[in-house]
């Protein structure tokens, strides 16, 4: 059984169809990259898995449980499937350490000392232990994103979702965030990545899905998808890869 099964999900905003019958599976340790033009539904797809959006139809099965079922505790699901955002979304009113501790204490009910220990461990993993007492406003974009990743790691998520994590960063910082993600990949963290960094996606991911206007245009092992691109995907590579 796969860790995550997304079965025929559809989503529309008003009259616009954003996702149409999207299905894919993810096994433990997989890294899936979702590629697509702006407005192809890739971010929405990710947000559905984190339940920040609800699909209009279909089912999402996490470890055997349909998380779209009415009785599901959304907060429990979100704690298991964490999201890293393009705009970081660090809590501005808290130090870096407090950012990493808050959800551990409130959601996982960990003790203060344990939560801080785990926070420090993950901050050092992303190379920012010395910034533990800093506030987000004093960090660079790349540092903010690394803190956001550390904050998610503290929750021991079963799947880590990355929604264009490097799109708001300049090239130097992109590299530092990509390095962190590559390290996580080596550790076997299961992840889904939405990105425009084609080379990085190709290097890091085991599976690739290409969405075109909300429809799955290509889905398969990364090398297979890149070596036999569909016409739409070929156009996409031409534009994105310069």
């Amino acid at each position, binding site marked *: 059984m796969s860790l995550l099964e997304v079965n025929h999900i559809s989503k529309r905003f008003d009259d616009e169809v954003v996702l149409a019958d999207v299905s894919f599976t993810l096994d433990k340790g997989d890294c899936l990259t979702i590629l697509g033009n702006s407005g192809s539904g890739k971010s929405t797809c990710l947000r559905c898995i984190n339940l920040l959006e609800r699909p209009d139809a279909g089912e999402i099965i996490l470890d055997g449980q349909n998380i779209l079922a009415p009785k599901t505790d959304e907060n429990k699901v979100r704690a298991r499937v964490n999201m890293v955002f393009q705009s970081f*979304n660090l809590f501005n*009113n808290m130090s870096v350490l407090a950012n990493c501790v808050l*959800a551990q204490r*409130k959601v996982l009910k960990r003790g203060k000392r344990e939560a801080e220990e785990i926070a420090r461990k993950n901050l050092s993993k992303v190379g920012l232990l010395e910034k533990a007492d800093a506030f987000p406003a*004093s960090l660079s974009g790349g540092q903010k994103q690394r803190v956001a990743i550390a904050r998610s790691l503290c929750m021991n998520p079963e799947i880590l979702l990355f929604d264009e994590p490097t799109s*708001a960063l300049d090239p130097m910082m992109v590299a530092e965030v990509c390095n962190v993600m590559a390290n996580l990949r080596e550790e076997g963290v299961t992840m889904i990545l939405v990105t425009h960094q084609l080379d990085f996606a190709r290097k890091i991911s085991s599976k690739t899905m290409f969405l075109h206007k909300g429809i799955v245009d290509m889905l398969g092992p990364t090398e297979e998808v890149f070596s036999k691109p569909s016409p739409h995907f070929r156009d996409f590579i031409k534009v994105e890869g310069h």
Partner: protein
Amino acid sequence: MNLGDDIANLLTNYWREFLLGLAGTLLLSVVGTGVGLFLGVFLALGKRMKPRPSDNPFQKIGKRVLRGLSSAYSAVIRGTPMMVQAILFKYGCMAMGVNWNNILPGIDVFNGWMVAGLIVITLNTTAYMCEVVLSGLNGVDKGQEEGARSLGLSSSQTLWSVVLPQALRNAIPTIGNEWIVNIKDSSVLNVIGVAELYFEAYMAANSTYAFMASYLIIAVIYLLLTLGSNLILKLVGIKLEGKRIFRFSHRKGVAA
């Protein structure tokens, strides 16, 4: 007697009354603003109530009712003068058999009317604070909430730990303004006999017939009070800014 003599005379013979008035005005403005802010937060939350698809029918109705009541309260209070509210409160209470004159009997200055005044100014400020808090909440970037929810925090945990502290932090200048408004507007509470600055000036003026002098004195006191509180607010602002807790602006997290 000329104006200068009148003022000197009043300050010599009535300084105690003016000081009491000053204390009354400060008490009204500080309590009204502080408690009003506290209650205003809850009123704002009431006004923001939205039924969720997952709510049961009772929750849905309850939320709609709370929302309606909160909005109505804010509209009525902000749509009528505090002076009228005070007088309605006085006679309303009397109609229900409560005469504030008989509460705390034997106390000359901060008597039952002061309690009534504190209630009126607090209930009045609550409505304004509700709007201040609401605009503070609206000013917090949506991403803050999403960031918290995506980690599994519930909506109320998100509100109390992440969104509200930032909303209040951003609202500090407006909250300070409300305090200054209250220093001045508490003067209307003289209509129900609350012993604040204007009331004491009125009493002094009527005993001495030094009307101009008496009201000039409190005008200067009001001015000093508002200038002083402005200074305090500025210092608080600088202190918070100096601590770099976080910025007022909510630019999206785009790398510099």
